């Protein structure tokens, strides 16, 4: 166990193992997203109520899932960084945040676009959309806080603390927004709120979700490896590596 953690400590080891894992996740992401796209767009049956506009679910829901997972993994990386001082964890957290914000934006955008045929308006203060909007602000807060410090160590630790505070608050925010929404009860239904989808509908959704997760892992590996090069550029092994690549 400790040997493993000590290995994780070493950016060099992460750089090497990341290089080996990365192609696998890229291939998985490409294949899953491709299959999910074709299946979801062309083969899944249209919804009996919403018609073909329902196909937006195949980007809206994976993006929303991924955005929330990214915040949680960012907070976990923050915890690992604060407890074990593993620098790679912080680098990964720093690289995840922009993707998380982008995914939150995608889910908000697709939700808004979906709202036009469903509700007849671009924006509805729907419980899910509202909590995604708050999540976007949380992401922006973490990114802005990291950028505000001039010392990298302080920036890392501050971002870690904020991510952890945020992750404790996310379920509270989610439940309170849900309650707030049911309390005010506008006369609409939630766009993704219905259970019991037939298999032909949720199978492509599952594939898309897995594809988005693979994409996230692959991209985080890649960008973390870049970040290692950036932060460790004074280390001997990084220089040797740059020498080899010539």
């Amino acid at each position, binding site marked *: 166990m400790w040997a493993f953690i000590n290995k994780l400590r070493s950016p060099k080891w992460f750089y090497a193992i990341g290089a080996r894992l990365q192609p696998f996740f890229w291939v998985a992401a490409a294949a899953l*997203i491709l299959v999910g*796209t074709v299946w979801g*767009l*062309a*083969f*899944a*049956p*249209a919804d009996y109520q919403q*018609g*073909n*506009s329902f*196909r*937006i679910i195949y*980007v*809206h829901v994976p*993006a929303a899932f991924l955005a929330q997972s990214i915040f949680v993994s960012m907070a976990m990386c923050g915890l690992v960084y604060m407890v074990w001082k593993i620098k790679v964890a912080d680098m990964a957290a720093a690289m995840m945040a922009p*993707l998380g914000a*982008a995914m939150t*934006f*995608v889910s908000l*955008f*697709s939700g808004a*676009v*979906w709202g*036009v*045929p469903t509700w007849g308006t671009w924006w509805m203060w729907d419980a899910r959309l509202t909590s995604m909007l708050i999540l976007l602000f949380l992401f922006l807060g973490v990114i802005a806080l990291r950028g505000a410090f001039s*010392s*990298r*160590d302080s920036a890392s630790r501050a971002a870690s603390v904020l991510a952890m505070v945020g992750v404790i608050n996310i379920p509270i925010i989610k439940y309170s927004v849900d309650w707030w929404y049911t309390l005010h009860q506008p006369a609409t239904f939630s766009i993704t709120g219905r259970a019991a989808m037939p298999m032909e509908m949720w199978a492509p959704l599952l594939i898309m979700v897995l594809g988005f997760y693979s*994409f996230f892992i692959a*991209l985080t590996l*890649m*960008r973390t*490896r*870049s970040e290692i*090069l*950036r*932060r*460790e*550029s*004074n280390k001997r092994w*990084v*220089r040797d590596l*740059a*020498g080899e*690549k*010539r």
Partner: protein
Amino acid sequence: MAFESFNEFIAMGGHAPYVWAAWGVTGALLVAVVLHARAERRLLLRNLQRRVRREERQGANRGEMAGVSHQTGGNHHDT
């Protein structure tokens, strides 16, 4: 197959602007993110190589070891 023809597929039962806008933005964003990551990596590697080469030259000129340098920004915090 949920559609009879390709044109029907494009029309999305009248919901074309919404479906294609949502998918388009998502796809564009995913592609942009990958391209950005690749460009970032290339730039880093190039800068690193340039730096190593420069320091090798300087080291050879002065007969010193290519040691710690602060010529490139962003390394002040590493010890």
